[in-house]
């Protein structure tokens, strides 16, 4: 039984590697059809034609396209995306420095989405068509309807008016700016080093950006959980347990809950890319200084190497997130573990 699941996971993993490969080809092709000379961009308008030509040769822009792609791919696999055309520093260093900030935000957001979205969806289904359901549906509708940047701005406005001491920008209080831990995640580092003040400040800063980012997802997951629950309520097995006197709350919260968590998990994987996209905007509004804001800047400034790196890293996130979700679903659903390859 386990061998079927391992086979399934390996198959998925290979599929994801293929996704990354095709993604790298696409983004490479896109970067090469872009008007404008990357070498000219790197050297600035003041450089002479000879200097630019030297740069072209140094960057290998005159080599055959396939050779350039292979070089790009080899670098990418080793985590080398070349030099930023704007700052002149290695793109990878820049991204690695900023990555923890974004990951911290995204992971907390995902947790929020699950911890709030799923139980609320179950509640709405349990008391469907009642006042709680109506209220929750309205809330989820608002969540889906409001763009993340608006939520972010509104939360900032709210804080500005009603929570005068609440931090509006950045990841951590000024006093802790110099703090550096082994992982770069403030919460983890704070906990590791016993600095609860750091953890507190980080959480305080995280609250609003994470909420702004999570709201749409919470609404969507709630709706999906609700409809999966209601769909499953029609099933015979609910009738079986009820006919033998198992209380409704056990049927709902134990039996249906587990079965109904599969659909929202699947969707979460698919929507992961959108989440990263939204993180770009939210980070901008809250001056988060993460990988996403960096990506945004590089896009605005046509920093091709950085753009390619940002897309590839986003793709990697997506792939890893989906693999984790596949494993989760496999743990929940024995049918996946039992399934033979076809």
């Amino acid at each position, binding site marked *: 039984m386990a061998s079927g699941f391992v086979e399934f996971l390996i198959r998925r993993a290979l*599929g994801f590697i*293929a*996704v*990354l490969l*095709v*993604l790298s080809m*696409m983004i490479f092709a*896109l970067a090469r059809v*872009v*008007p404008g000379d990357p070498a000219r961009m790197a050297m600035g308008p003041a450089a002479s034609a000879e200097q630019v030509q030297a740069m072209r040769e140094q960057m290998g822009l005159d080599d055959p396209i396939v050779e350039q792609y292979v070089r790009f791919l080899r670098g990418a696999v080793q985590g080398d995306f070349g030099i930023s055309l704007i700052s002149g520093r290695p793109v990878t260093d820049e991204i690695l420095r900023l990555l923890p900030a974004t990951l911290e935000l995204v992971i907390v957001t995902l947790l929020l989405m699950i911890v709030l979205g799923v139980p609320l969806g179950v509640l709405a289904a349990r008391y469907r068509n009642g006042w709680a359901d109506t209220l929750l549906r309205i809330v989820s*509708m*608002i969540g*889906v*309807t*409001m*763009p*993340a*940047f*608006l939520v972010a*701005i*509104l939360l*900032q*406005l709210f804080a*500005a*008016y009603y929570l005068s001491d609440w931090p509006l920008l950045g990841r951590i209080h000024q006093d802790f700016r110099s703090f550096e831990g082994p992982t770069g995640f403030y919460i983890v580092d704070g906990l590791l080093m016993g600095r609860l003040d750091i953890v507190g400040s980080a959480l305080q800063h995280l609250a609003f950006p994470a909420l702004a980012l999570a709201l749409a997802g919470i609404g969507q997951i709630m709706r999906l959980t609700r*409809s999966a629950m209601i*769909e499953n309520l029609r099933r015979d097995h609910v009738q079986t347990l009820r006919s033998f006197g198992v209380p409704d709350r056990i049927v709902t919260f134990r039996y249906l809950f587990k079965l109904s968590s599969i659909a929202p998990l699947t969707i979460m994987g*698919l929507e992961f*890319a*959108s989440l*990263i*996209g*939204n993180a*770009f*905007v939210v980070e*901008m509004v809250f001056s988060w200084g993460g990988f996403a804001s960096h*990506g*945004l800047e590089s*896009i*605005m400034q*046509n920093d091709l190497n950085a*753009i390619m790196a*940002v*897309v590839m890293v*986003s*793709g990697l996130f*997506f*792939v890893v997130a989906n693999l984790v979700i596949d494993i989760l679903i496999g743990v929940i659903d024995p049918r996946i573990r039992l399934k033979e390859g076809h």
Partner: protein
Amino acid sequence: MASLGETAISPEILTARRMAWLRFRSNPVALLGAFMVLSVVFCALFAPFIAPYPEDAGNMIDFATRHSAPSAEHWAGTDKVGRDILSRVIFGFQVSLLLVVGVLGLAVPVGAALGLAAGYFGGWTEFLITGFTNVMLAIPPLVMALAVGSVLSQTLVNAMFAIALLWWTWHARLVYRVAKSVAAEDFVEAARLAGASHMHILLREILPNCVAVISVKTTLDAAFVILFGATLSFLGLGVRPPTPDLGSMVADGRQFLPEMWWGVLFPALGIFYATLAFNLLGDGLRDMFDVEV
């Protein structure tokens, strides 16, 4: 056929279509959504006649009235160059709806066609199309749109193109799922055996069974496209000033927060109203057709 068992058709089967309509009609939220969508479309179509200051849609500058708070003359106040915000929001609907029509007009047919082909033909067609769809799903749409938008010149048409470039994947996925299950039904095989061509089966046998999901998804997507367009222009891409666009109006107004709150609030409400309208209608249609998208 007045024979015993066969006349016993239960009334609910006989009126399946009517039931769907009853479900829709008895859903006040869906009706509200339909009304709101109509009002948005109406505003967009007749903006020059409805807006109190139609000339403010363009490059008008009137420093005398700049940053005035909501009042009897300017119900929603004015912006940094004195233009009536209410008028600009009404014209903003035009831009939003144009974007919706452009993006979905490109993305839905392409996505549906690819989904149909993948679901019906199977084999390599299915492998290639679903594989490519999966790759596209891994790209954050905002990143892609920004990248394309920053490379091409920033016009409404290019923004549409950039968004549509990714949007078709969701429709392809959905239609593929439905088409695959429909293609496995006996009636498709029966049509094949009766000599029907692939074209006939795709367009006449399978597509009609996908219409419900496509229309629900398209309605809900209209809301997302409005959101997405607003986000793009909020970031400074997509539509260029002075075209009145809801997203860029929020971005403009944000500089003067929190004092001149109306500069953000009313465009925000405009976005909210339009997206809510399509979401409510889409939800109502979803209940009506009883499909999951």
